[in-house]
């Protein structure tokens, strides 16, 4: 249960950070390819039968690699719709890491590793144990601290690179710290529970509708909503069917219609 709270908060919190940083309420750990990168890293870890902490580190490295590549592509391709390039780059890189995961599944030992990887990828907290928590909680906390401390500066960052610089921000430093912190939180969540999609996109989006875009309010509300949402979904996953349903499947089943609803009826200026 604690794991569900932490994973939900981590995904929603990092989603809120990415959305503010990339000035785009449509990005999320999934869309930026971070989840896929982190999953790839973690699968490499499982494949090599590494200890838990090393799996988490590999997951972080994978997630960081994905977001750096995606951001690099978006920065290199100028003169197009920047948001579109960012999202498409994320999808493409996510697919590439997904292919990497597929390759490793193909190579994995089909009796032992393959089921482990597959169930884990579907997104599940069924296998979460206290040992996972000892690595999940500190990583989430370490990621949260800079996000919380930098909340006022993150607001300024939503104005864009040039304007933020003109207002006195060291944008390169801030971006580096925020990406590292958000990616650490995402990776820790992915390492603990596999890919649980949509939380990082839909929850901060809803939170912004409720309390506005100021990060000082957006972050705590996203954390609360994310934790509550995942706890509810996890409870549902355990009780709806005769067997426990994969969490990632449920969050996608809930998240997709909510997202489409936001896309159709959400407030326009937010992504103009």
């Amino acid at each position, binding site marked *: 249960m604690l794991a569900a709270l932490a994973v939900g908060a981590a995904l929603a919190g990092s989603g809120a950070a990415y959305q503010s940083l990339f000035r785009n309420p449509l990005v999320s750990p999934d869309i930026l390819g971070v989840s896929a990168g982190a999953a790839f890293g973690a699968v490499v870890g499982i494949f090599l039968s590494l200890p838990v902490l090393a799996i988490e580190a590999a997951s972080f490295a994978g997630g960081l690699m994905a977001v750096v590549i995606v951001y690099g592509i978006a920065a290199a391709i100028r003169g197009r719709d920047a948001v579109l390039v960012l999202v498409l780059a994320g999808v493409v890189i996510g697919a590439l890491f997904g292919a990497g995961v597929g390759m490793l599944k193909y190579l994995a030992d089909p009796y032992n590793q393959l089921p482990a990887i597959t169930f884990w990828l579907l997104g599940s907290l069924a296998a979460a144990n206290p040992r996972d928590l000892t690595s999940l909680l500190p990583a989430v906390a370490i990621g949260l601290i800079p996000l919380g401390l930098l909340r006022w500066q993150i607001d300024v960052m939503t*104005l864009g690179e040039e304007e933020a610089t003109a207002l*006195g921000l060291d944008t390169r430093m801030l971006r580096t710290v925020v990406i590292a912190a958000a990616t650490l939180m995402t990776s820790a969540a992915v390492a603990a529970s596999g890919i649980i999609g949509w939380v990082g996109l839909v929850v901060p989006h809803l939170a912004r509708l409720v309390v506005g875009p100021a990060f000082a309010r957006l972050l705590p509300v996203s954390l609360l909503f994310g934790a509550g949402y995942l706890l509810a979904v996890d409870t549902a996953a355990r009780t709806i069917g005769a067997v426990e349903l994969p969490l990632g499947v449920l969050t996608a089943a809930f998240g997709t219609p909510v997202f489409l609803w936001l896309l159709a009826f959400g407030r326009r200026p937010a992504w103009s």
Partner: protein
Amino acid sequence: MSEPRLAVEDLGYGYPGRAVGHHIGFTVAAGEVLCVLGRNGEGKSTLFKTILGLLPLRAGTVRVDGEPILGWSPRRRARTFGYVPQNSGGGFPFTVAELVLMGRTAHRGPFVSPSAADRRAADEAIAALGIEHLVQREWLRVSGGERQLALVARALAQEPRILVLDEPTASLDFGNQVRVLDAVRNLAETRGLSVLLSTHHPEQAFACADRVAVLAGGELLRIGAPADVITPETLRACYSVDVAVLPVADDRYRVCVPRLYLQ
């Protein structure tokens, strides 16, 4: 005579790999408004961004009160220059109050929340622009003129010595153009702010500027008092259009009328 507030010396500006202008030199004194004219693509925005340090200098020096600002941190620049960009990039629905408070970023450490002093400065800037009634509105949902005033208030909250406004009246209706220019003129007079602003309406220089600079062909074509610079000859050289400059109200103001309309 002390050093001018802002001195631009032999400045070359442009983008990496592409020079736009060179040998630009001018000064702006405290309390003075300098209006920059130039046709589309002449690089007025690029010039401003170069002065602000958002684009690298290609050549020359920018001094504030005699001190070269090369190597200044963004923080120090932001406490010196208040900037009103032509298109603000903010797409999130912050309130006007939150937007103006962002002007205080350079006045506190990275981890520090806005203090009472920061809020006072922001409130004072909001009051100076007369937009108190907007503070709780989303800044993306107020009118274009109000949005512009909010951005000026944000720049003012920076407590700068120099205000840089990139086409502050572009896409504003007639009344809002007058209000924004009047507000800017007032700030220069009452607070001794140096103001650098660009516009596409030469006439506006008569309304708000002490001096006018005209950019043409990547160089400073002319600079001086509006009455000396805004002449049919300069306007033809700048915009390739024949214009009559006519005094009105005992020459307290001049209007610019394309000759085409007078035939």
